[in-house]
């Protein structure tokens, strides 16, 4: 069995879950984004997005900053250096597997 297949079990499970993968993919392409943007970009429900953001925050992959935009509360999310590094490693692993499956 090839290394790429064996490596499937070593995929980062915190990122690999589809909803969290969507959040990580969106945040990897920007400096930061607010909760409303993530809602639109990922298509998740508010509760779902909030729960997955909490898990990513606990894992140290996402930094969540709560503040105000005018009178309204505003939550801004950004990937941490650890999160960016983890997503880059995940992406490489994923691409290697995809290339192997295409053969």
């Amino acid at each position, binding site marked *: 069995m090839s290394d790429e297949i064996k490596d499937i079990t070593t995929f980062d499970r915190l990122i690999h879950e589809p909803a969290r993968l969507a959040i990580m993919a969106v945040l990897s*392409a*920007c*400096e*930061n*984004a*607010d*909760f*409303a*943007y*993530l*809602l*639109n*970009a990922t298509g998740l429900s508010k509760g779902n997005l909030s729960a997955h953001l909490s898990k990513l925050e606990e894992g140290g992959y996402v930094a969540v900053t709560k503040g105000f*935009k005018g009178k309204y509360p*505003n939550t*801004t999310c950004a990937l941490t250096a650890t999160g960016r590094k983890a997503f880059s490693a995940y992406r490489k692993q994923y691409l290697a597997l995809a290339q192997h499956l295409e053969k």
Partner: protein
Amino acid sequence: MAVFFALGGVTVWFSLEPMWMSIVANMVARFGRWAAWINLMPVILAPLAVWGMLRLMDYLRRRWLWRESGMVKPLRWVVSPQVNMLSAVILLGGVALSLGLRQWGWSDDAFVLRMLWAATGWGFGYTLMGVGQHVGISRYVWLGAVGGSVSTLVLFLPLTFGQTALVFGLSWSLMLMVSGTIALRRGLMSAQGNR
């Protein structure tokens, strides 16, 4: 960026064109030395206008686009260092080529000066193509390719350095404005669709 290019072109044209210089010289003779400061006005106004434009863009995004679609702050460095490096090589390569051609007697000083703008356009066009490929927006790839081609045209126009700057700046400004208008229109349509 469109405003930056337009004002940059106008500033260089205004500062270096003999026609404007003689007008300023006449004003100095008539009204005194302080009139010479008028020649420097574009240099002061250009950065102010760019700053104002950035503030306006930010306001428009916050007021309309981000209210519906949410706020996103783009990455500071979108393109890889290799793209930036190659862009600089293209710019310097163009200038070196024109200097070489002049050395061999195949071009004149005016061609070397026009090459400064053409090579700047090639380098910037290449950077835009790199950005487009990186973020997956074909509009930027097209903009870079068309802008690079248009920049080549200024090489062959019988213009002075200042006039070339004006044509170059306004051409890029127009292309960027068209591109920006397309993006803004899509953004507003998407925001309306989400309502």
